[in-house]
């Protein structure tokens, strides 16, 4: 994920507001992935996430004059995406997000990792095998929503703690706690199952046994 460039964004916005509307395509393009996956994480439905992503982009355009530049553009865009997603969940009568946020954060829970005595690294080349991607996706999709959102922005879109906190309207401390728990849950769930994807013999990925 390319981090957006604040100067490019500011210049682009200035020119769009001055009438060069076609530049909006270039402005929104670097945010597309993050918008979509944040909405997919909230809505858990591809078609609806795509529609909500389009609505988000339209709202971003219509509210562009309200962007103050005191946060990164992408952070501002993602907070609009988040509101779009939560609005849709509310309209659908789901109280899932609200109740989850209230319940889980209070729990100390069990975040003991999977105990292993050795780990052989799974190289990213192994992602050529479709099952590995599917396994990772299903584990992330299986996380409680509040953890899933943080993993998505921090580890998948590689946003920093501050921007993640701003986009999700939570504190930086909460981002860190949730990320830690999410990674612990993923490690416990996935580490035992990922062993099969590690190269087992010398030479497969140029890897020593």
């Amino acid at each position: 994920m390319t981090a957006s460039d604040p100067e490019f964004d500011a210049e682009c916005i200035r020119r769009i507001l001055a009438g060069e509307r076609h530049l909006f395509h270039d402005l929104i393009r670097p945010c597309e992935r993050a918008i979509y996956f944040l909405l997919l994480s909230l809505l858990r439905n591809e078609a609806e996430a795509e529609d909500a992503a389009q609505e988000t982009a339209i709202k971003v355009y219509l509210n562009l004059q309200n962007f103050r530049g005191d946060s990164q553009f992408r952070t501002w865009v993602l907070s609009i995406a988040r509101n779009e997603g939560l609005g849709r969940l509310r309209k659908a009568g789901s109280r899932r997000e609200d109740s989850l946020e209230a319940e889980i954060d209070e729990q100390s829970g069990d975040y003991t990792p999977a105990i292993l005595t050795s780990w052989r690294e799974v190289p990213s080349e192994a992602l050529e095998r479709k099952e590995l991607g599917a396994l990772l996706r299903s584990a992330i999709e299986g996380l409680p929503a509040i953890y899933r959102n943080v993993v998505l922005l921090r580890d998948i879109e590689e946003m920093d703690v501050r921007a993640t906190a701003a986009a999700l309207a939570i504190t930086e401390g909460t981002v860190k706690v949730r990320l830690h728990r999410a990674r612990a849950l993923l490690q416990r769930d996935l580490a035992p199952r990922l062993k099969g994807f590690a190269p087992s013999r010398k030479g497969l990925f140029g890897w020593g046994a």
Partner: protein
Amino acid sequence: MRIDCKHVWDHISAYIDGEVDAVLRAEIDRHLETCEICSAVLDSTRNLVVLVADDRVFELPSGFSERLHARLEKDLELTGS
């Protein structure tokens, strides 16, 4: 003072992100030198963080971008100005 495994696990995510202070980092490093379990927990967690960041794990639906920009064009008439 030697820290225990639980203490290492509590800070593993911050350790990976380089967000533990120098004293704690040194303590964790010392623990890792002799603890195979914590080394494996750290390596597996770090490996996972690398894997999920790969663009191949989460791909946009085919045609997503084209449909988005077509919709923007249709609703906002961006090139019409």
